[in-house]
C-alpha cells in the first residue's frame, strides 16, 4: 500500500482520506501483530536473562559469603539471627519450618496426585457392621486440584522468600564490611509504618485478592483442561481428569452439537457477535445521550439545574434489581404497557417486546439507555464544565455555529478525557450480566442453538450463557471455563488495541 506524506494526505478529497485511513488501519494489523510477538519475545528474553542473573548472583553470594551466609542457604534466617537481627531471622526460620512441615504432612500428597487428579473414585464396598454395600469415597479430584494449586503457590512463595533470605545475607555482609551498623528488630518494626508502610497497607487487601480472586481464576482456567461437570464432580459420582485441549475443540468445532441443531462454534459465534454489538450500542448510546442531557442542563439560561439533576440522580440510588425487574415485567406480554395500550384500543395484539428476537434486542438497548443516562449525565457534567470557556468564546467570534463548536471543541475534549472510561465501560457492558439477566433472562430462546449447553436465547451475552451453562442441568463447568477464557481473550484483545490508540492513558503521571 502506498504511504502518503502529510502534505499528500491533505491534498486528498474527503472520501479518499477516509478510504486511506481505513486502508492503512487494516494494512497495519499484520505489523501490529508481528510487533506484539516481538514484544512477547523480548519479554521472554528479559525474563530468561533475569533468571540467569539471579542464579549467578546466588552462586556468587555462596562462594564469596562467610560461614553464616553459607549456613543460611540451608537454614533460612540463620545469617540474620547470627548478626543480631532477631525478628527477621525468626520470621525466615518460622516460614521455612512451616513450609517443610506442610510439604511433608500434606503438600507432597496433593502434588503427587495432581497429574492424575485422583486414581480411585467412589466404590461400593461391603460393610461388615451394617451388613450391606455402602459407597466408600476415596480420592476427591476437586480437592486435589484446589490443594495442588495452593501447594504450587506455596512453593513459589517459598522460593521467593528463600531468594530474599540469600539477598539479605549479601546486603548485610556488605553493610558490615563498610563499617556501618545493621538495623535491629526495633528499626524493622518502625519501618513498617514508615519506609515500608506500603507493604503494611497492601498486606491485607492483597491477601484477599490472592485467595479470593487469583487462586479461583487459576483454578477455573485449569478446569478448562479437565472434564469437570455434573456427571464428574470429582467426589460423589466420578473423578474428573485432564483432557488437554478437548474442550476448546468442542467449543470451536464445526460439527453439530449433541442434541442436534447447529454446532457449538456457530452458537458461540452468534452470541459473540451479539455481545459485541450490544456492548458497542450500550456504551455509545448512553455516552452520547448522557452527554446530550448534561449539555441541555448545563446550557446558560436553563433554570432549576439542581432539580433536573436530582430527578435523574435519584434513579441511580434505587437498586438495579428493582428497577430492572419492574420495568422488565412492565413490558411483558401481559404487562402494564401492553394491557394499557389494549385498554385504550390502540393495539389489538400485545406487542412482542420480549418474544420477538429483534424487538427484544432493541428493548434491552432502550431500557439500558434508561438505566445508564443518569450516571453518564453525572460523569459528563463535571467534565463539560471544565472545558475552558475561552475556547468557545473565540470559536463564536470566528463564526462557528453550535454544531461546529460541538464537533471541534466539545467532542474531542470529551473523547480525550473519557477515553479510558469508554474502554472500561465497553468491557463492562460486555459482561453486563444484570441488565440482560434481570430483563430477559436471555429470552427469546434460539431454537437453532438447542444443541448447545444451556437454553441459549437471542439476547444472551457470553456472560449469561456462561451462567446458564454453570447452573444448567448438566453443569458443564469445563465448558463454562472455556467460555470464560474466551471472554477474557476478547476483552484483552480489545483493551490492547484501544490502549495503543488512546492518548490519555499513556502517561499516568500527567494527571497528578
Amino acid at each position: 500500500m502506498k504511504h502518503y506524506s502529510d502534505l499528500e494526505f491533505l491534498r486528498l478529497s474527503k472520501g479518499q482520506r477516509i478510504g486511506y485511513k481505513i486502508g492503512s488501519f487494516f494494512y497495519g494489523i499484520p505489523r501490529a501483530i508481528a510487533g506484539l510477538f516481538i514484544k512477547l519475545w523480548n519479554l521472554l528474553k528479559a525474563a530468561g536473562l533475569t533468571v540467569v542473573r539471579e542464579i549467578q548472583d546466588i552462586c556468587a553470594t555462596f562462594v564469596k559469603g562467610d560461614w553464616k551466609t553459607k549456613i543460611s542457604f540451608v537454614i533460612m534466617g540463620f545469617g540474620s539471627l547470627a548478626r543480631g537481627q532477631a525478628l527477621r531471622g525468626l520470621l525466615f526460620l518460622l516460614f521455612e519450618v512451616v513450609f517443610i512441615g506442610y510439604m511433608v504432612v500434606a503438600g507432597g500428597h496433593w502434588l503427587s496426585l495432581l497429574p492424575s487428579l485422583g486414581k480411585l473414585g467412589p466404590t461400593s464396598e461391603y460393610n461388615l457392621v451394617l451388613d450391606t454395600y455402602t459407597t466408600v469415597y476415596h480420592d476427591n479430584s476437586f480437592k486435589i486440584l484446589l490443594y495442588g494449586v495452593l501447594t504450587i503457590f506455596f512453593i513459589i512463595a517459598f522460593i521467593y522468600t528463600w531468594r530474599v533470605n540469600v539477598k539479605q545475607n549479601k546486603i548485610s555482609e556488605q553493610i558490615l564490611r563498610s563499617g556501618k551498623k545493621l538495623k535491629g528488630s526495633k528499626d524493622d518494626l518502625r519501618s513498617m509504618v514508615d519506609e515500608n508502610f506500603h507493604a503494611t497497607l497492601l498486606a491485607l487487601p492483597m491477601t484477599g485478592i490472592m485467595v479470593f480472586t487469583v487462586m479461583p481464576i487459576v483454578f477455573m482456567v485449569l478446569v478448562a483442561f479437565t472434564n469437570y461437570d455434573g456427571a464428574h464432580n470429582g467426589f460423589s459420582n466420578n473423578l474428573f481428569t485432564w483432557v488437554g485441549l478437548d474442550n476448546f475443540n468442542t467449543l470451536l468445532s464445526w460439527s453439530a452439537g449433541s442434541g442436534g441443531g447447529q454446532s457449538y462454534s456457530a452458537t458461540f459465534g452468534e452470541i459473540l457477535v451479539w455481545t459485541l454489538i450490544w456492548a458497542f450500542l450500550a456504551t455509545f448510546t448512553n455516552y452520547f445521550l448522557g452527554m446530550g442531557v448534561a449539555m441541555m442542563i448545563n446550557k446558560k439560561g436553563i433554570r432549576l439545574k439542581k432539580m433536573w439533576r436530582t430527578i435523574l440522580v435519584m434513579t441511580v440510588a434505587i437498586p438495579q434489581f428493582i428497577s430492572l425487574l419492574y420495568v422488565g415485567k412492565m413490558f411483558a406480554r401481559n404487562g402494564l404497557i401492553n394491557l394499557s395500550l389494549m385498554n385504550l384500543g390502540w393495539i389489538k395484539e400485545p406487542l412482542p417486546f420480549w418474544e420477538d428476537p429483534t424487538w427484544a434486542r432493541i428493548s434491552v438497548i432502550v431500557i439500558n439507555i434508561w438505566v445508564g443516562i443518569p450516571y453518564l449525565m453525572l460523569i459528563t457534567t463535571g467534565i463539560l464544565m471544565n472545558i475552558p470557556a475561552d475556547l468557545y468564546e473565540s470559536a463564536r467570534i470566528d463564526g462557528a455555529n453550535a454544531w461546529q463548536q460541538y464537533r471541534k471543541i466539545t467532542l474531542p475534549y470529551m473523547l480525550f478525557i473519557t477515553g479510558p472510561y469508554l474502554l472500561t465501560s465497553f468491557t463492562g457492558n460486555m459482561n453486563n450480566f444484570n441488565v440482560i439477566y434481570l430483563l430477559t433472562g436471555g429470552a427469546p430462546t434460539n431454537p437453532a442453538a438447542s444443541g448447545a449447553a444451556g437454553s441459549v436465547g437471542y439476547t444472551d451475552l457470553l456472560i449469561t450463557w456462561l451462567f446458564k451453562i454453570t447452573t444448567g442441568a448438566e453443569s458443564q463447568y469445563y465448558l463454562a471455563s472455556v467460555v470464560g477464557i474466551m471472554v477474557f481473550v476478547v476483552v484483552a484483545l480489545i483493551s490492547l488495541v484501544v490502549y495503543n490508540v488512546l492518548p490519555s492513558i499513556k502517561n499516568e503521571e500527567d494527571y497528578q
Partner: protein
Amino acid sequence: MNEKRHMGLRTLNRISNTTIYILLIIISIIWLLPFIFIVLQSFRVESTYQVGYVIPHEWGWQNYINLWNSDFKRWYLNTFIIALAAAVFITIIQLCMSYTLSRFRFKLRGPLMRFMLILGMFPGMLTMIILYRVLSDLGLTQANAVPGLILVSVASSGMGYYVSKGFFDTIPKSLDEAARVDGATRFQVLYKIILPLAKPIVIYTILTAFMGPWGDFVFARYVAFGTSSGYNVAVGMYSWLTNDQIARMYTTFCAGGVIVAVPVTILFLCLQKYYVEGVTGGAVKG
C-alpha cells in the same frame, strides 16, 4: 440592522430554551414514571397481578401486611447486615489499596497495577463455582450465607481501587513532603494529613459499599440457593416474580421494592454531593 439581528438571536435563544425545557420535562417524566407506578401498585388491593391501569381502584395496606408476614423481614435484615459490614470493611480495604497505589512509588507498583488490570478482564462469574465449593466446605452457604457473602465481597474488593485512587492523585504531594521533612512517619502523614482531606472520598466509598449489597444478585443466589433464610432482598424478591409466583406476589413485590428503595434513596440523596464528587472526580481518571 444590528438591533434586528440581536432580537433574532434572542428569539432563537428563547425557542431553543423552550425546546430544552420541554425535553427535560419529558425526560423527567420518563425517568420517574416507573417509580411512581411501583408506589401506586404497592397500594393496589383488588388484584395481585399486572393490570392495564395505573391508579388502583381499591387502596389498602394489604400488600405491606403480606410483606410483613413473609420471609421478607429476614431477607431485609440479612441485606442490612451485609451492607453494614461491607461499608466498614470494603472502605478500609479500598482506601488502603488506593492510597498506597497513589502515593508510594515502590518497585512492584507498576507490575501490580497491570496485574490487577489483567485480573479484572476475567469474568468474575467464572470464580463462582469454586468460591461456592470453598464456602460450603467452610459451612458458609445456604442458611449461613450472610458471613460467606461478606467474606467474598470484602476479600476481593481491593480490585475496585480506581475511583479513590483518582481522588488521592489530586491531593498535592507537596503536603506529604512537607510533613515528612518535619519528621512525620508515613503512617502519621496518612492519619493526620491525608485522612482529614479525604473525607469526600471516604464518604463516597462508604456509600457505594453500603448500596452495593442491596442489588447483589447472582452470587448471593448461587450461595443461598433454595434456603430462604439465607436470601438477601434481591434473591428473595426475584423468586416472587418467577412464573409460578408472579400472579400471587406481583403487588407484594412492588411493596417490597418501595420498602427497599425508600431508605436507600433517602440516604443517597442526603449524601448526593459526595457521590457526584466521587463519580465526576475519580471515575474518569482511572
